[in-house]
């Protein structure tokens, strides 16, 4: 029986060709900016002929970003969570949202109001926290 040759050299040319093609293709399709979006449907929070009115007994949940804090209101009565060194007090805000969640387990909608002086960053911080806590249907008021 003939002795089998074991010192085989692998042909690397197709591998290198494949890798080169892959690198070029992936470079073209790479995303260098991780941009995402927080969506709002403003028709829900502004006067519109098409918007259906909320049920009569439904409590209107409203979060208002003020320059001094975040006001959380059920219909008209609300309490203000003061900012911590100019930033939203996220821990207290999340706790308050969890209280609302236990009170209204099926609700996902609320209206987000803003005072004119607050920054866009603050709006996004509050919006992001609301979405993170399961309030996916946030209507941003433009009033």
């Amino acid at each position: 029986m003939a002795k089998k040759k074991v010192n085989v050299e692998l042909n690397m040319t197709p591998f290198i060709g494949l890798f080169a093609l892959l690198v070029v293709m992936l470079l073209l399709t790479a995303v260098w900016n991780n941009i995402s979006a927080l969506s709002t449907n403003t028709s829900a929070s502004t006067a519109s002929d098409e918007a259906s009115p909320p049920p009569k007994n439904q409590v209107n949940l409203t979060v208002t970003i003020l320059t001094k804090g975040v006001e959380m209101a059920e219909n008209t009565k609300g309490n203000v969570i003061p900012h911590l060194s100019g930033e939203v007090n996220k821990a207290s805000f999340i706790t308050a949202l969890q209280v609302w969640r236990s009170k209204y387990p099926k609700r996902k909608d609320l209206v987000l109001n803003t005072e004119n002086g607050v920054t866009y960053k603050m709006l996004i911080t509050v919006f992001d926290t609301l979405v993170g806590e399961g309030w996916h249907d946030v209507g941003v008021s433009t009033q």
Partner: protein
Amino acid sequence: MTGEVSSSTKRVIRPPGYHIEPKYDLKHFRKKMDESSERDYDVVLPLTSMIDMFSMLVIFLLLNFSATGEAYFVNKDIKLPEALNARPIESMPLISISKTSVSLDSEVVGSNPVIIGLNDRQMPALVASLTKLKALIKNQEDAGLPVKKGINLQADQNTDVVYIKRVMNILISTGFSSINFAVRETPPPPQADE
């Protein structure tokens, strides 16, 4: 080839050797040329390191891969705020709001940048562009083409909300009610080991 010449003096004939005078001789060059003729051209390229590099590049690029093929341009004057719970952005008309201007699809609306001031609440150039865009969307819709009716909005994180709300009001009045706020995606914080 050697031989003897029949004469009074005996001379030995030798094959001619190198005969260029030392003045014109490029000694080192000659040496190099002589060596290169003996060089082994059957060189094996070490491919292991190259394949390693390619593999790492492919893995890195695979992590950044996007199958959607959508490009998104961030204005250099705009620093987007960060968010944890955002969803992937879709390709839609883009409105950029910076401290000095409002632009639609990377083009400053109007001949001059629109100064964001409370005295300029109407923003006629933006309204005109949005009306044109709305008409274009309607035409596409009538033609049975798939259309996206929303709009992407990007703004600098330090912009006052009043400017955002002003643009939003114009968007609503021109029929764009679905607005997506562009944000920078941040990875979730690492979970503490228990």
